[in-house]
């Protein structure tokens, strides 16, 4: 049976959802062995070294590469997250092996894999062939539902790490306070070029506040300096999946769409009934967004009062 090592990300033992998905994905390819870094025993291989006190992409990858050299598994997986992709890229470079990032499907074909992976942040897919003695891949988030995983006793693996590898370890960590963020908000009120100005966002802020939501925006808005980049939704911004996404004056370019297509409901407010955002949305209101938003805010207030 194919041995599948899965590098999992965890926070003091709380395993990332994307890592649980990678474990489930790996289960379809062979016998899964968990690999984790740190003091918490999670079963499988537990990488421990005095140098590994915080996230350290080079040192973690060096440890994984040594483990792969010692165990020679057929497959190594991680979640397709910022860290997962980064660590696996280092492993691939160290072992001089190919890496397929953000894979959605694997079809073993002889010694090789035919696979499907994400391109353009999810707007396109690619079918590719991966040929390698050890197959390295990251699993695109949310392509598989995480199943329960039977964690077994842990075996400590102690890599040999040169002190020099500390050069890419986190040097300082500042914890942020968590309020309602774009990724957790149940409603996102998002504005595009059609909002017209930074001041134009006041009514979006007001509506978001009333609904316990957050304000988002398109790239045109951040490029114009109307909103900070942390508000940007899309391929090079944040991915959101709220219960309701309200797109105000956003045309619906594919790079924006991939950032919010997981929303349960989409409401477009746009003066162009033919705009792609309108034709792809579940609900739409056609017209100038400012008087429409003013009326919506007034109506919410009226119903709350009555």
């Amino acid at each position, binding site marked *: 049976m194919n041995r599948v090592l899965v590098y999992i990300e965890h926070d003091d033992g709380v395993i990332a959802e994307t890592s649980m998905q990678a474990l489930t994905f790996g289960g379809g390819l062979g016998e899964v062995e968990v690999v984790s870094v740190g003091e918490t025993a999670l079963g499988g291989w537990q990488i421990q070294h005095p140098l590994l006190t915080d996230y350290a*992409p080079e040192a973690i990858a060096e440890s994984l590469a040594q483990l792969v050299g010692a165990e020679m598994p057929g497959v190594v997986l991680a979640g397709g997250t910022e860290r997962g992709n980064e660590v696996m890229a280092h492993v691939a470079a160290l072992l001089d092996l190919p*890496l397929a990032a953000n894979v959605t499907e694997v079809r073993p074909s002889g010694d090789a894999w035919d696979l499907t992976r994400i391109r353009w942040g999810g707007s396109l897919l690619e079918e590719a062939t*991966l040929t390698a003695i050890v197959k390295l891949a990251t699993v695109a988030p949310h392509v598989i539902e995480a199943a329960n995983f039977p964690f077994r006793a842990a075996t400590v693996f102690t890599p040999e790490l040169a002190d020099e590898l500390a050069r890419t370890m986190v040097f300082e960590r500042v914890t942020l306070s968590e309020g309602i963020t774009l990724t957790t908000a149940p409603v996102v009120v998002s504005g595009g070029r059609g909002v017209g100005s930074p001041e134009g966002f006041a009514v979006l802020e007001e509506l978001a506040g009333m609904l316990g939501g957050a304000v988002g925006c398109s790239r045109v808005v951040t490029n114009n300096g109307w909103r900070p980049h942390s508000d940007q939704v899309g391929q090079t911004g944040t991915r959101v999946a709220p219960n309701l996404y309200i797109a105000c004056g956003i045309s619906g370019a594919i790079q924006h769409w991939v950032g919010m297509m997981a929303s349960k409901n989409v409401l477009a407010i746009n003066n162009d009934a033919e705009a*792609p955002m309108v034709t792809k949305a579940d*609900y739409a209101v056609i017209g100038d967004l400012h008087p429409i938003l003013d009326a919506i805010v007034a109506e919410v207030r009226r119903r709350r009062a009555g």
Partner: protein
Amino acid sequence: MRLLVCVKRVPAPGARINLTEDAQAIDARHLSFTVSPHEECAVEEAIRLKEIHGGSVTVMTLGPAEAEEQLRYAVSVGADQAALLVTNGSDWDPQATAAALAARIAEAEAADGVFDLILVGNESADSGGYQVGVRVAHTLGRPIVGGIKGLAIEDGFVSARRETGSAVEVYRLPLPAMVAVKEGINLPRYPTLPGRLKAKKAEVASAPASANPGGLVMNRLLTPAEQKTTTTILGRGPEAAPAVVDLFEELGLL
């Protein structure tokens, strides 16, 4: 301070992506071309570092002859030198791309000195392989960190800021180093008229690239199945407000 930025020419699709008949590429007949927003910001960041510390910015790309357009754009906003590794326009795998870039960078360094900082995008806009920069870094023996949204250089180190959902991480890499940056690290400037004129006349050092294919071969592209939705029009203008608020109530948002 010697700075280098690697950028990749990609088409800029609008509301939907159409593929060529052989499904090997995006049908770009009616599209303009650009680079990833991450890479635009990498160029801007390099120019800002040059403005603070002096020195020069080189931009490099591996792509078809037309990729000159993206290099000239970088020159128009302040880059000093441009290097193009010319391919026949086909899609190169990450290993081949990284090997060719690293070899060209090593050549440039042998001739004119080491690049103190090499900047790449966090991921390319089209293939999103998350690895070309890391592979180049390993070949050149440099440290690299990704997801970077803030940079400062002092005392032979680059300090780099990265945001996770709940924290800000600071890394401190000894120079020479590499960073993979993300959009949002800065707000890129627009080219000025003198910048455009300079870009027009700039010399682009072109050399053919030789491929050394890796183990991941693209067979074809496909568009994901589109979910058909029928749009319910709740109304036109402010009169639609009650219907919208009804929807809020239905979804349990009030």
